[in-house]
């Protein structure tokens, strides 16, 4: 089946038609297909639809019916947030904004014909394509680990069942057992994410299993908000957390999921729970579309998030290689708005505005102990460059930390409203 713009329009229900300005009903509207309904894709679809008053045919392709945010999934592990509160559906995007949400996988992109093929067999043509497929894991980046072993050694780096599984494993770990994390090399999604996770696991263990130990096997010399995390760990979870860096061979690691062991440069560690976060690359569809570089990411034009390989395609979020912005939900959301404006300019002659990018990442270290790091960014020819930044300070008073945590809840509610409401 090949869905053409006209047939698609005709098949849209009355509710959707009510959103379209009468003048465009029955005419061919330019179509934007968005692949991936996460932080970048849902935001882009929503801004494209709501700012164009029905003048664009926005199609969102996303296999899952409920999007579980990775943000706050660590807080769920720590018992601070409910699983249901992580999940968001696409109903409002369809009902309120007239977006055609198709729950399917995109399996192919024909850039010459300007079509996207779905797993279910449909072929969609597009005037502009937006890709925000998130990440996939680099095969064999941790020898011994593969997705077939992900139940014995969960990654929990795409939220949902994996996160539930890891939580259950932490909670049921034997008394005095070892929780290990194999941390990812740069670049990866959410730079402070693994260390916020360590904090949350430590929080659970210090309450339920205080003699347990945590081992971080980290191929990186240093990590995001390191001073803040280390200060917090020493204060809240003294003696529980040990981190092994590349100086002790953590850049040469393999695992045995059957035996539940980690081999750190020849030294064998037996562990009880093992969270393997492999090296990452752009979501596979970006590679299928031929938009990625040797490193596995999709280079983009800093001013508008267009693929450097194809100026009818924008790549957003984690999958993009853009410069200084961290791979975060906040970043993807920020980039989506710039791309949506650029697309509406090209297809509808809307006013074009200069790109503004920003990011803030909050992390929770313990009960009421929140920290943040953030920056604003500007496009240069070569990359999106950080122009101004801030970070929480060590030694801040408890009241400020509590407020920072509350602020993160405000942000969570804000960004999901900005994506799904």
């Amino acid at each position: 089946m090949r869905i053409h713009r006209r047939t698609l329009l005709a098949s849209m229900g009355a509710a959707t038609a009510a959103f379209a300005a009468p003048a465009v009903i029955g005419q061919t509207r330019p179509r934007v297909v968005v692949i991936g309904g996460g932080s970048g894709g849902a935001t882009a679809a929503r801004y494209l639809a709501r700012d164009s008053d029905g003048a664009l045919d926005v199609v969102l392709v996303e296999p899952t019916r409920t999007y579980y945010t990775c943000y706050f999934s660590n807080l769920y592990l720590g018992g601070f947030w409910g699983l249901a509160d992580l999940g968001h559906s696409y109903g409002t995007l369809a009902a309120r904004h007239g977006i055609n949400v198709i729950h399917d996988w995109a399996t192919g992109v024909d850039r010459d014909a300007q079509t996207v093929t779905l797993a279910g067999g449909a072929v969609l043509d597009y005037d502009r394509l937006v890709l925000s497929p998130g990440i996939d894991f680099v095969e064999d980046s941790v020898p011994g680990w593969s997705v077939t072993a992900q139940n014995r050694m969960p990654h929990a780096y795409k939220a949902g069942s994996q996160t539930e599984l890891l939580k259950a494993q932490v909670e049921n770990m034997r008394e005095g057992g070892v929780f290990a994390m194999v941390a990812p090399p740069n670049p990866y999604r959410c730079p402070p994410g693994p260390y916020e996770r360590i904090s949350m696991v430590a929080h659970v263990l210090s309450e339920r299993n205080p003699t347990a130990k945590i081992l971080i096997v980290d191929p990186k010399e240093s990590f995001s908000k390191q001073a803040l995390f280390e200060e917090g760990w020493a204060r809240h979870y003294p003696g529980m957390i040990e981190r092994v860096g590349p100086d002790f061979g953590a850049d040469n690691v393999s695992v045995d999921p059957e035996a539940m062991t980690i081999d750190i440069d020849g030294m064998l560690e037996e562990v009880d729970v093992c969270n393997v976060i492999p090296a990452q690359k752009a979501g596979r569809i970006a590679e299928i579309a031929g938009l990625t570089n040797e490193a596995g990411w999709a280079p983009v034009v800093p001013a508008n998030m267009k693929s450097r390989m194809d100026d009818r395609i924008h790549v957003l979020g984690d999958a993009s290689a853009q410069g200084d912005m961290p791979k975060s939900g906040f970043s993807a959301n920020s980039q989506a708005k710039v791309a949506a404006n650029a697309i509406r300019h090209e297809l509808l002659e809307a006013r074009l505005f200069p790109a503004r990018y920003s990011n803030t990442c909050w992390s929770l270290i313990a009960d009421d102990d929140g920290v943040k790091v953030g920056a604003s960014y500007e496009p240069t020819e070569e990359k999106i460059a950080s122009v101004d930044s801030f970070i929480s300070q060590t030694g801040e008073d408890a009241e400020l930390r509590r407020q920072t945590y509350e602020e993160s809840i405000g942000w969570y509610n804000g960004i999901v409203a900005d994506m799904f409401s």
Partner: protein
Amino acid sequence: MGMRGGRRQTGKAVTAYRRATGALALALGLGLGAALAQPTIGAEDLGDAEKGRAHWQDECADCHQIGPGAANDIGPHLNRVFGRRAAAVADFPYSDSIRRMGRDGLYWTLRTLDAYIENPYSLVSGTRMDYPGLTDAEDRADLLAFIRLHSDRPSDMPEAAPTARRVEVDLPPEVLEMRGDREWGEYLASECTTCHQRDGAASGIPSITFWPEERFVVAMHAYREGLRPHQVMQTIARRLTDEDIAALAAYFATIDD
């Protein structure tokens, strides 16, 4: 510096040191165009405490107490207010808004008090201090000199860092009257709505929906100048131009979602 050599800032001795150089209150004084025409105080300037006593009676004493035995009243007592963190008097039922500012790191200094007295809402949007502001910069300097008499610790001295930092904020009245480009504002607002929900729902992050334009403008200038504390907001505001701020204000005042 005005206060060198152990000179006490009482009465005329201090007035003699007043200089009409700093443009301290300007970022916040915009709502009040008249203030701009007048010389404004710099951080090292204090007024005439005797004149200030009269202003205290007229402007403050209905709600605040000061001096020996002062207690909380409609407003908190103002003994030792210089150098104190905002919302720090025990047992006083402050507004959430000023508590938030206190947690963010708002300290009462000559500079911040001057801004607050000039236009309370410009510094603390949701303050319950129901006071229209004292527009005349000299009157404020006098009043603060009086209040300052009751804050006599060395660390309160206004010329001690960081209060002594002179900020030249040059905000002509046309900035305030600037008509914001609403469409530009709507685009820029997408940066705000990652955290501040468009429909005004607030949880941990305050609502900025339907703010009067002027309140919005003064608040953003205050962040940009670093008068209002908050890391995220200062970083966001630092790259906004006057036009950007006017545009955002125009959008949020009439937001329709």
